[in-house]
């Protein structure tokens, strides 16, 4: 694998020497997530311009490196406009050591389809394609192209880094923004402060509606699970969708040191269920070991500060009921349904 790394790039880059996080210590050595190793491709290199505590940078680095491992470094990436694009490629610098293209905000999935078609035409189906973007570029402006890619079952893994808003343009509401959340276009004023409790768009479920081979959600709080899902996604041919929950300190008004904590709490409250589905059927969900009330998760984010004010108790209750419904729907607690 090391031989595949371009010569212009440093072959060895140690971010830290070994990892001894709790989850890792419980696993056998070969199953552990490793942040630094001579074999690691470092596809998204250090020196990029993401904010401190950026969940997206972390999620992208682990996801792409996992794709590189799964494809023996034979991959091409298409990237939607957004934070990930901007902070990695301010001309003439690039943080990518993989072939990478940014075209437009709303067309990453279609560009991915085109690359996959080119590889097929050239008999290079060993070269695999990913397309990636934030939630705005995926659930809103890029949705038509995404659905088209699913519909044709093009051989593309789409990675959506969901930070629940248009963070690159200054924190506006997207169709992935949760109810009550403050954004620049859903300010916490008036009788129903923050984002209205509309249905929103659950793109993982919509992706399942296309009967594509593989759909999953992951969180940067569990990088081992994220890598596992990417690797699994790459074992399928055809359209695949992986949504990665990536907290945004700037947009959420959270401490930069709380990114992982928030990513974990979103899962443990039931606000962001982790599950996998194959060909339209859910095949498994991550159980919650220590269930927490949503207020513990919300208190760490200024975008929800108003739900704790007198008179807004109903907002907090609604958010808790959404978490409760998720737990029931996806069977996230052993007591709440059969183990899927």
């Amino acid at each position, binding site marked *: 694998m090391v031989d595949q790394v371009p010569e212009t790039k440093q072959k060895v880059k140690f971010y830290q020497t070994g990892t001894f996080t709790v989850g890792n210590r419980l696993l056998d050595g070969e199953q552990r997530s490793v942040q630094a190793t001579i074999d690691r491709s470092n596809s998204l290199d250090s020196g990029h311009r993401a904010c401190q505590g950026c969940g997206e940078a972390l999620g992208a680095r682990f996801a792409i490196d996992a794709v590189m491992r799964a494809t023996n470094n*034979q*991959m091409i990436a298409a990237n939607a406009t957004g934070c990930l694009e901007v902070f990695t490629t*301010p001309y003439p610098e690039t943080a990518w050591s993989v072939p990478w293209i940014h075209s437009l905000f709303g067309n990453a999935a*279609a560009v991915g*389809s085109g690359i996959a*078609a*080119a590889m097929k035409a050239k008999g290079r189906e060993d070269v695999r394609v990913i397309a990636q973007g934030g939630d705005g570029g995926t659930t809103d402006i890029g949705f038509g192209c995404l659905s088209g890619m699913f519909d044709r079952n093009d051989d593309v893994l789409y990675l959506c880094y969901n930070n629940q808003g248009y963070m690159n343009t200054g924190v506006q509401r997207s169709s992935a923004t949760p109810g009550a959340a403050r954004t620049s276009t859903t300010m916490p004023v008036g009788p129903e402060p923050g984002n209205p409790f509309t249905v929103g768009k659950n793109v993982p479920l919509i992706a399942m509606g296309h009967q594509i081979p593989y759909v999953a959600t992951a969180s940067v709080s569990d990088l081992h699970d994220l890598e596992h899902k990417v690797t699994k996604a790459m074992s399928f041919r055809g359209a695949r969708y992986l949504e990665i929950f990536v907290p945004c300190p700037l947009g959420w008004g959270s401490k930069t040191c709380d990114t992982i904590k928030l990513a974990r709490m979103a899962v443990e409250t039931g606000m962001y269920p982790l599950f996998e589905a194959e060909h339209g059927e859910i095949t498994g969900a991550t159980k919650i070991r220590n269930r927490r009330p949503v207020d513990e998760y919300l208190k760490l984010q200024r975008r929800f500060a108003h739900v704790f004010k007198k008179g807004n108790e109903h907002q907090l209750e609604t958010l808790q009921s959404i978490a409760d419904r998720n737990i029931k729907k996806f069977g996230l607690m052993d007591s709440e349904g059969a183990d899927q």
Partner: protein
Amino acid sequence: MLKQMDGSDAVAEAVGLCRPEVIASYPITPQTHIVEALGSRVKKGTLGNCQFLNVESEFGAISTCIGSSAAGARTYTATSSQGMLFMMEGVYNASGLGLPIVMTVGNRAIGAPINIWNDWGDSMAARDAGWIQLFAETNQEAIDVHIQAFKLAEELSVPVMVCMDGFILTHAYARVDIPDQEQVDEFLPPFQPRQSLDPSAPISMGAMVGPEAFTEVRFLAHHKQIEALDLIPQQAAEFEKIFGRDSGGLVKSHDCEDKETVVVTMGSVIGTMKDVLADMRDDGHSIGGLTIRSYRPFPSEVLRQKLKTAKRVIVFEKSFALGMGGILAMNMRMALQDLPVKVHSVIGGLGGRPITRENLRRMFEKGMRDELEEPHLHDINMDVVNRELEREKAERRSGSIAENILQDVGVVAAAKGI
């Protein structure tokens, strides 16, 4: 080989001979038959390993083309009208990324009011997008120009639109000479991209460029177009050597040399005009025609040479810049600004309005007397226009303009017993 076929099928034949690797298909009248015909060739297996994608929109079409071209595959799509507007963000992006996509535009009007017939509103909307725009006069020229378009695009790494009048060419059956595969292979080598997405030599394409370099980047995109001014005639000459036909190039003269009045236009309309101009010359008038085959880049210098002795130019176009006038006329005036020549702007054939020998001759004669108003709307019925203006003046909620006009025209026609 000589064949009798419609323009769409002929273009599909030509594109197929160019060995495309990826084709994106989305239906919109009047280009649909082209991608249909290519789809069935791919399905039959006659185009080798070519990938045919049924995409979900024109925005998806141009976006898949961007991906496949960036990955080094020879890439083709076709569109018209609203489809062109729907893909416009990608149209600009493809040229900005320097991707040699070839796209046929079956020229059609832009709505509202919705109209499926021919004018140049669609490709004119993309005239500043950084694509080369070549206009075909006949179906034979459409075939030949497509073959040249791939070579031109790939040589310069710039996308090319081949514009052909919707229905008038796309749906017209005509005898065409379909080139042999060997001839096309001799003319058009396999695609060697200037850069491509390749895991063995990773590059980042489409990075953000700030004020420190954007001007230079844009100028270099303009410079590619200027290079095309030399390359287009060169390739047309090379084409003529292999295929034995004069097709393509920057402009084509129809007896315009040393004439007092020269009619300048693009596309298929010159077919009718040629007959009118010949009749007028027979009657002793000093009048000729000139078609612009390459609209982008605009061949200003060649036009100055061709028109340096003309007294007046009548620019006839199927495009209308609302609030300004003729778009081609504006370009012509800029190109000819240092010549002592009067430029008349005539706009006609909008939304498929028939252009006949009779109404052309009346307009040309008026032009020769320098009596054309600015801009001149060819064959417009000002009575209908004035009645609608009066209705609008009389009543604020006077109803839909399009519906009122249709009713008006219908009533008038009935009253006249037509």
